[in-house]
């Protein structure tokens, strides 16, 4: 079998790669914000937490568990009506964002919760003893002290997100997944599938490398 790359259009490939980057980065930002919020709320409302509250903790935990349980491909379909209202269309990279964030944020939220639980309780106690407000405990103690774990958690989440964007691509969101499926697989041009795979692996490696680098750099333990 010989490889024939003549069907591979460079401009299409670049556009698809850009779309994948776009979807991953924007949804990663959204995931970071919402995941952090969910994780903090899970941690703070937990038993012996600063805002200990069984009911709120239960509601958030249920929300997180439900959305983590739904397979991503089904979640996109399920969200079509919401997406249409929010984005105005169900096709293209923008349309994939709500589903991507809703799938990844609960996952990241759990990672955030675990990271926060690793923060030494004594340090939180010391901050309280100094007269620190809850906001300062969150922003000056909890988040900085758990930063390496928050970053490595975000790296793991980013890699799942890249996988999700490819899946979303297969049902019309664009990006490398879409290019591999519609242009490559359906027209039986194996070379395009191959090139897309290689590109996705490279993107994953880039994210992994950056994440590991930052995480190591900020860890002073």
């Amino acid at each position, binding site marked *: 079998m010989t490889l024939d790359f003549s069907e591979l259009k460079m401009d299409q490939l670049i556009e698809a790669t850009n779309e994948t980057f776009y979807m991953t980065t924007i949804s990663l930002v959204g995931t970071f914000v919402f995941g952090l919020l969910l994780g903090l709320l899970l941690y703070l409302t937990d038993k012996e937490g600063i805002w200990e509250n069984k009911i709120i903790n239960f509601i958030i935990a249920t929300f997180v568990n439900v959305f983590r349980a739904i397979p991503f491909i089904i979640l996109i379909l399920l969200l079509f009506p919401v997406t249409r209202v929010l984005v105005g269309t169900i096709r293209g990279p923008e349309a994939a964002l709500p589903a991507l964030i809703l799938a990844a944020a609960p996952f990241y939220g759990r990672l955030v919760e675990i990271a926060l639980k690793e923060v030494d309780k*004594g*340090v939180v106690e010391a901050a309280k003893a*100094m007269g620190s407000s809850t906001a*300062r405990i969150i922003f*000056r103690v909890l988040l900085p002290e758990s930063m390496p774990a928050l970053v490595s958690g975000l790296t793991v989440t980013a890699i799942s997100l890249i996988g999700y964007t490819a899946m979303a691509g297969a049902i019309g969101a664009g990006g490398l997944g879409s290019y591999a499926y519609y242009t490559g697989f359906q027209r039986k041009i194996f070379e395009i599938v191959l090139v897309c795979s290689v590109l996705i692996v490279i993107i994953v490696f880039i994210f992994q490398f950056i994440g590991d680098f930052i995480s190591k750099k900020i860890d002073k333990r």
Partner: protein
Amino acid sequence: MISIHGLEKTYAINDHSIRAVDDLTLDIEAGEIFGVIGYSGAGKSTFVRLLNRLEEPTAGSIMIDGKDMMQLNTKRLREARQDIGMIFQHFNLLWSRTTEQNIAFPLEIARMPKKERQARVKELIKLVGLEGREKAYPSQLSGGQKQRVGIARALANNPKLLLCDEATSALDPETTHSILDLLVDINKKLGLTIVLITHEMNVIRKICHRVAVMEEGKVVETGNVYHVFREPQHEVTKRFIGEVLEDGEDDETLEDVLREVDRVGKVARLRFQGTATNDALISNIAKKFSIEVNILQGKITKTTYGTVGTLVIQLIGDRREIDDVLSYIKDADVVVEVVRDDT
């Protein structure tokens, strides 16, 4: 400085409740180093956390520096806490911050402007002797240095009160010593009141003025350290003092010692009760009297108020001169008891 009345803390665990602190009434004066000693589970750690309301008391009242701690709302409580420093057994430093950033943390909480903050941090670093380690992260510091950072941080907002929760329990004896010296130093320099929780009688003996002994949530004995050492009333206190003096086995070992000593002269047991001349007593005897002094056994310890303990000596020489020596010792406010007379 601190006035505690009927303080109580009960925890509900499953169906039964545990009373960690039980009807505790105590007064702590300004400028003193007040020790609270107890075995683990005695409630001393809970007690110290009730003072700044890290734990909410179930009942009772706490007055600190004229403030009724129980009446403070969240905001006022935070302000009050800025005037109460606290140090911990495991230091509780932020690993993500350097020495100077850790020390600056309480100043950030108190919203001190950056310029003043930097100046204050410099002062504090000098006070606790950490010059040259400003940029080091906690992971690069030794245990003693970490506790120095902890102390500097606790003192940052010029508190009038310092709470120490087992502050030396994670340190080796030598480091413990240097940290205790530092605490005494700041107590004198800044006139700071210190409440110190520990399970080591040695810590109490070395630096405390007064002590409260806790057992099962109650204060079973309180008084100035010297008196408590000399006349311990409660079983727990006696056990703690025994750890320092190794009392109790006294008579048994004394017999063993006596068996091996030639039966000449007199053997006397001296009980030291804290007079200042103790250090020179034996050498003074040797200088003033033409008598031979053998030290047979001794269990002596120093407290903030003077020497406490027993010393067994043998006096060999002229009978009358030996009696002179004994009355000389009595005059130095040391209790003398002749254990064997072979003159």
